């Protein structure tokens, strides 16, 4: 065949080996040491939260293990049982703060991540449908999205919690309600952009089914902005949950999240028992900062306009 005189095509010298988009993404991501550190910290935090029940001395949600007589012990005080030490003290109800914080972290992350993921699933599906179906359905969906977005999340969550009542599930429902629209808008936006690209036309030209094009071709390419939104929204959800807890419409008193720990400990701010809200505050802050840092780097790495 004569065409081969076009080359044995000179192997591109830039990439020595097969580089998957993921590998490239990892390489780009780790360019920032801070973000890498944040990511590791995030993984550690999540792991800690995950294995909390096996590493903490006390189950802070089991009322049989919590004694009001132990309330507000200073950091470093030995527990009344003598079996362990309250390294970070206890809260107003007598919970060991280390235990309570890790459990609280669990709840906060659960609320943040779960609501983020559910909202993403719901929003992405709606966004894809809107982009795909088009026409009146799309207009209707996008109008609802606009309305949802133009209305302050905190008000919606506040009203919903007031109506639904307390509980982790209720909080998640409320947070999903206020978040899904972000995902829907993001996915629809990038799905529209992607579906105008020639590779989608090519796929259609090749007779591939709509479902295949939508989920195998378009959706994977909509993921980068979605991932960014997930990180931002997760951080936002955790913070929002804390705020709702502060406003008294958050989680049950006996199963405090980090936000509720802070908000409970907040009463002690002026009385000198700083540790009750200081340490949870620190952990909450660190968690949100870390997620934001990771999200920031993701944004930089995944943003095609800033890529080199």
């Amino acid at each position: 065949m004569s065409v081969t005189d076009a080359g044995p095509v000179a192997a591109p010298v830039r990439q020595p080996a097969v580089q998957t988009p993921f590998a490239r993404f990892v390489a780009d991501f780790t360019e920032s040491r801070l973000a890498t550190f944040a990511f590791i910290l995030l993984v550690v935090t999540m792991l800690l939260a995950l294995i909390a029940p096996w590493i903490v001395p006390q189950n802070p949600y089991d009322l049989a293990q919590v004694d009001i007589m132990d309330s507000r012990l200073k950091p470093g005080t030995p527990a009344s049982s003598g079996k362990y030490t309250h390294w970070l003290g206890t809260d107003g109800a007598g919970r060991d703060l280390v235990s309570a914080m890790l459990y609280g972290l669990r709840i906060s992350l659960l609320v943040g991540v779960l609501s983020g993921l559910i909202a993403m699933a719901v929003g992405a599906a709606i966004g894809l449908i809107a982009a795909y179906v088009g026409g009146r359905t799309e207009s209707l969906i996008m109008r609802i999205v606009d309305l949802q977005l133009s209305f302050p999340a905190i008000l919606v969550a506040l009203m919903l919690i007031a109506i639904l009542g307390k509980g982790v599930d209720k909080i998640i429902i409320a947070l999903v309600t206020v978040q899904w629209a972000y995902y829907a808008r993001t996915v629809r936006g990038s799905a529209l952009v992607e579906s105008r690209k020639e590779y989608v036309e090519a796929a259609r030209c090749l007779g591939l089914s709509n479902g295949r094009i939508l989920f195998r071709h378009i959706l994977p390419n909509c993921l980068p902005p979605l991932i960014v939104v997930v990180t931002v929204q997760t951080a936002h959800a955790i913070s929002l949950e804390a705020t709702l807890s502060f406003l008294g419409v958050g989680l049950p008193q006996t199963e405090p999240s980090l936000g509720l720990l802070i908000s409970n400990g907040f009463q002690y701010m002026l009385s000198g028992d700083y540790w009750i809200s200081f340490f949870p505050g620190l952990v909450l802050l660190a968690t949100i900062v870390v997620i934001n840092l990771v999200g920031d780097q993701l944004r930089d790495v995944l943003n095609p306009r800033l890529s080199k």
Partner: protein
Amino acid sequence: MYRSKTILTALVAAGLALSAPFAATAKELRMALSAEPSSMDPHFHNLTPNNALTSHVFERLVHFDSKMKPIPGLATSWKTIDEKTWEFKLRPGVKWHDGSPFTADDVLFSMERAPNVENSPGSFATYVKGKTFAKIDDMTIRVTTPAPYPLMPNDLATIAIISKKAASGAKTDDFNSGKAAIGTGPYKYAEFVKGDRYVLVRNEDHWGEKPVWTKVTIRPIKTGPSRISALLAGDVDVIEEVPTTDIERLKGDTKIALGQGLSNRVIFFHMDQWRDESPFITANDGSKIKNPLKDKRVRLALSKAINRPAIVDRLMEKAAVPASQFLADDFFGTSKKLKPETFDIEGAKKLLAEAGYPKGFKMTLHSPNGRYINDARMAEAVAQMFTRIGVETKVETMPGAVYFTRATTGANGNPEFSFMLLGWGAGTGEVSSPLKSLVATFDKVKGMGPVNRGRYSNPVLDKAIEEALATVDDPKRAELLAKASEIAIEDVAVIVSHYQLNTWATRKGMQYTPRADEYTIAMSVSEQ
């Protein structure tokens, strides 16, 4: 140029306005409240912050002293003519803020208006109902009731007397704007900015003892730490409802003085005693069981499980007193015999075993959050204690908005919960109020037990209460009320926990005389 000049003018004006009252004898008092009064209309809403605010401007026939004992107010004296008739002598020489004289007509007008205020979300009708007011002369009023009614002075201590001349046809808004806010009280209306500030100036022509402060500014600061901060930063002079968590610290602060006093409020638990199966009680394995709270031994066991001294000490920061009955010992009609239930885990376990629950059962404790001092934490602590005797207790707290509906009419017009934390402030300052409302058999027609959320029913107790309520003679009634209290407490109709102490904090150099009715009023702030 124009702009800066205007601002300058405004600043000078503001400066003058601020500096003027400071001249020579001017003494300003700034107080921070934990709740926002909703109106200057003293009849609009029977609510502590409203009543406290309006009592600066308006007075009642009978006043409560700081311990809620009736003392003369606009009436100098009262007596019973017969079992069903009371006569009140009005204070002579009292002038309204607009200078017109106070007469019996004003009293009749006030009693007429109090139960019938438009849009009122909670009127004073309860205190006027069944009473017929008659003017004997300008300075004498007679009140008749269909049955003997001993609580006449207490009831009339709730109803503010307003000026017939100034308030005829006035709406609530007219009071807020100051138009109708013409009272006889020690302070005059100056400014009412809802949610922001309420300003009063001293009534130099008041009949009684003149308060120290010439000008009073009252501001609502709902958040506890913010309220404390405002005091510490010197932005206010007096705050009410000092969060218990800060009492310890403030005691050590040389720039702050505290005033602490027993309130008329008891924190207690209502227990479902009417359903055969209670919705929030199950066996340990989650299966349905017969309602154990119907058994007195179980109720007693739960009462014994509560470590009241620990609650007072650790949770309330000593701003409470372990409760033995519905009102603290000093109040009218309390029993001297009753003592707080002792903390006794073994005894409690034994009683449970006797009642057939050696391994306990599961229960959910419901509580409001933010309605009573430390209510949610209290629920949590008590749940801990119950869990220790084998009654595995879950806590569910909710905002008052949700809680009280469900606790009162949640289950088809009946209370929804099995075991609930509640508080009761005896507005009349004596024991008949909690007895009648909380433990008398629920009876819509008679108006008994309206908030008996456990639906406890004991004919013996009902009889005792009714008898006491029909006894006008004070010593005798006190004895009957004490007796009724003993019946209720000994049968563990409710489990009482503690009486709240109310705490005020002032800047050094001032002192707040604590009031059992929880009012925060400028007249109670003295200078040292």
